[in-house]
């Protein structure tokens, strides 16, 4: 048993240090996406208004270059789209610019990536697929090893046969009870 406990301690220590970074990634992202019904955890939206000299509602081939010239954007334009007689939409990397061709009113709507949160959510939700799937599976395996090895770290009344066992039981009962209640609706 002592040899087994020694192995558990080694595993728990080595993998524990290794898991710090990814655990913070998944935990921070977990809190953020847990409240997805309240907010967009990856993007912050914005609306900005301005005005240009109205180019008129003529043919798109003539009007679109005028609009782009008057907007004087400092970023690449993906595409333009004549959404209606009076409306030209300009698509840029992080948003859409609606231009009223008659009044010259410009409304820019966009989404900015939230610093840090966008990246941790990208990993947590496995948006990139492919290589990250393997890494995430490996991290999950590390967590399983940490959980199981942790059971055997401490001997005596603070360990599995004492307070530790009670806490472990509470931690198992909580999700089981929730799952049962959730199934009953």
């Amino acid at each position: 048993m002592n040899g087994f406990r020694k192995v558990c301690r080694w595993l728990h220590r080595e993998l524990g240090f290794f898991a710090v970074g990814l655990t913070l990634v998944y935990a921070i992202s977990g809190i953020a996406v847990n409240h997805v019904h309240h907010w967009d955890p990856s993007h912050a939206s914005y609306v900005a208004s301005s005005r240009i000299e109205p180019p008129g509602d003529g043919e798109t081939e003539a009007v679109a270059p005028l609009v782009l010239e008057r907007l004087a954007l400092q970023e690449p334009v993906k595409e333009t789209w004549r959404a209606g007689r009076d409306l030209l939409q300009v698509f840029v990397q992080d948003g859409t610019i609606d231009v009223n061709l008659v009044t010259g009113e410009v409304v820019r709507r966009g989404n900015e990536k939230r610093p840090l949160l966008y990246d941790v959510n990208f990993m947590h939700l496995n948006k990139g697929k492919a290589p990250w799937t393997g890494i995430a599976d490996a991290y999950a395996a590390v967590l399983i090893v940490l959980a199981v090895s942790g059971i055997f770290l401490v001997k005596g009344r603070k360990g599995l046969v004492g307070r530790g066992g009670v806490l472990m039981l509470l931690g198992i009962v909580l999700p089981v009870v929730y799952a049962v209640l959730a199934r009953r609706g």
Partner: protein
Amino acid sequence: MRRIVTALLLLAVAAAPAVAKEKVYGKGVAAHEATPVSTVLAHPDQFVGKTLVVEGTVVGVCAHRGCWLSLASDVEGQTLRVKVEDGVIIFPKEIVGEKVRAEGVFKANRVEDTAKKCDATRDGEPEVQCTTVYELFASGAVCDWK
């Protein structure tokens, strides 16, 4: 120790998503010729129930779950909604302005003006005013990211 750190760093670099020009969503798109959106919208009932490939610039996307796109037609002002199964395909917000090809079944949804589904049997009730909303229920899409 140094070898472990080096190996981990190489792993992290290898895991970084490659900057791909073409991104496939869902089952992707078969190599069929696309039907112009204007042709579909000019005679929509002829296409109901058929599998189509359409393409166009994305002019709108679902802000909540990325479960639909609005594709610009080849005719100005026209758009076609491309719907996907919730959670199976999730279009990112950044896809607005990109060119997308989508494949799926063209559907006609009869909806009341109050946006509820039409009920065929409504005995004793006044005639329900319904409209038909056409959309492509896509099984896959491909985006040529700029």
